[in-house]
């Protein structure tokens, strides 16, 4: 054999390789395959005994769901609930003889941390390697869900990415990965958010959100109007649709009305309104200040509960 050198055994490269494969092996024990869509199974995490968490958008049917475990067994599962706002779903199984995921310390979520995204889109466990590329504070998803921390990844997204865990180099779980919250970018829902949503879904089967039954669009108000009525903001939310029989409709809100304040707080962004409409507002009276035909009108409305989105239908991995 001609001279062709290799690194000596016991080198750091080999020990890093062993650490990564060991992390996948450990964490992979609690990663399951969920058969609830066509084509390729989705990934899920055995989060608590008998409780599996998954990405809502990958669970495309509510019944006849089965789960394949790391030990090769396949068991039936029932959907305990889903929260489209955080893209999480919770399933329950009677018996899962595989370990539950071990969570990492929250401090492990740092920019630059070496991480593995683990999946099980079938019988075998899969992995991709990368780093956490950005970390931010609490943020609100497009659908109004609250995520405790913003965690963006520089990790390639393959089949089985969504619903699988993000783990550190020791195999401890930092959160649940999904490509369903930000137009396909790789994000992680941190373990703290998963715990909170799991608690809510196990308790009531859903994460209740307040609901006005109004379609709103931000519009700029003419300066003369703002000055004449001393409005708090030059941006309002115009009503472009009303849900028949919904809270807004029952309170007499009309298409063309411009919402400028809720409970004396100016609203210029639909996201602010979503933030205001937490589950605790359901059934409560709130005062809306509306500009109708150039004149301010005060309307009192009883907040309803947002209807549940049926099932995951968006494409995603």
């Amino acid at each position, binding site marked *: *054999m*001609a*001279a*062709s*050198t*290799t*690194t000596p*055994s016991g*080198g*750091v*490269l*080999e020990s*890093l*390789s*062993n650490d*990564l*494969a*060991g*992390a*996948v*092996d450990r964490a*992979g024990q609690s990663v399951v395959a969920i058969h609830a869509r066509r084509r390729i199974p989705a990934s899920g995490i055995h989060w608590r005994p008998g409780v599996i968490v998954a990405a809502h958008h990958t669970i495309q049917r509510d019944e006849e769901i089965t789960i394949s475990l790391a030990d090769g067994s396949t068991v039936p599962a029932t959907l305990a609930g889903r929260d489209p706002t955080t893209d999480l779903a919770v399933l329950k199984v009677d018996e899962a003889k595989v370990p539950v995921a071990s969570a990492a310390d929250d401090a492990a979520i740092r920019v630059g941390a070496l991480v*593995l995204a683990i999946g099980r889109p079938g019988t*075998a*466990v*899969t*992995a*991709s*390697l990368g780093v956490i590329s950005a970390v931010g504070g609490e943020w609100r998803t497009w659908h109004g869900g609250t995520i405790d921390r913003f965690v963006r990844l520089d990790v*390639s997204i*393959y*089949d089985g990415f969504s619903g699988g865990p993000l783990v550190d180099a020791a195999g401890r779980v930092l959160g649940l990965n999904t490509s369903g919250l930000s137009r396909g970018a790789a994000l992680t829902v941190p373990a703290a958010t998963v715990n909170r949503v799991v608690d809510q879904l196990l308790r009531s089967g859903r994460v209740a959100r307040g609901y006005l039954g109004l379609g709103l669009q931000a519009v700029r108000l003419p300066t003369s109007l703002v000055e004449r009525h001393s409005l708090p903001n030059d941006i309002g939310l115009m009503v472009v649709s009303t849900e028949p029989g919904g809270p807004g409709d029952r309170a007499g809100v009309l298409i063309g009305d411009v919402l400028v304040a809720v409970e004396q707080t100016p609203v210029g962004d639909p996201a602010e309104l979503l933030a205001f409409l937490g589950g605790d507002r359901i059934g409560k009276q709130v005062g809306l200040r509306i500009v109708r035909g150039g004149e301010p009108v005060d309307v009192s409305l009883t907040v309803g509960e947002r209807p549940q989105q049926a099932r995951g239908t968006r494409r995603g991995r």
Partner: protein
Amino acid sequence: MITEPLGREMADLASALRRSTVEVRDHGRGAGSGIIWNSDGLIVTNAHVARADRATIVLSDGRTFDGTVTARDPERDLATIAIDCGGASLPSATLGHPTDLRTGDLVVAFGNPLGITGALALGVVHVVESRGGAPRWIRADIRLAPGNSGGPLADARGRVIGVNTLIANGLGVAVPITSVHRFLSDAGRARGGSRHRAA
């Protein structure tokens, strides 16, 4: 600090792989990569890289040889090319064991992606697909491009464990060298057989 030895080992690994990786020029069809399988001048590459009967082989030190395609298996997508190196000993690849690979293991690919000569890529094993207990495909989370075809996928010690063959859904897909061993023994038998018939 492990970053310093890590960088040094990676550089050593890259230079070892560079020596045992060749460029395969399939006249007019662009370039692929190949692996120096033994010091006598046997090159292993993909069948889709060596489409014609002859190919030009360029070593990392610039030496250029005319090669003859001695075996092709389009099913396995493997081919061998023999070069006459005039008795010189070529720097052959060190071979590893694909059966030992685990998901998450570090892997490196070496080759000539998009005409860039001698490019290294780092990744991890995404999954090893087996059939009947034997590895069939090594899928790796690694960035490959056309031109990597026929080049080596190696483990963390620089031992070649696969032949980079295609890109599927963004994953690099390599034929494990266990398949190469079978291909070579099949090809050897076929040659022996034809000699026998010719006699």
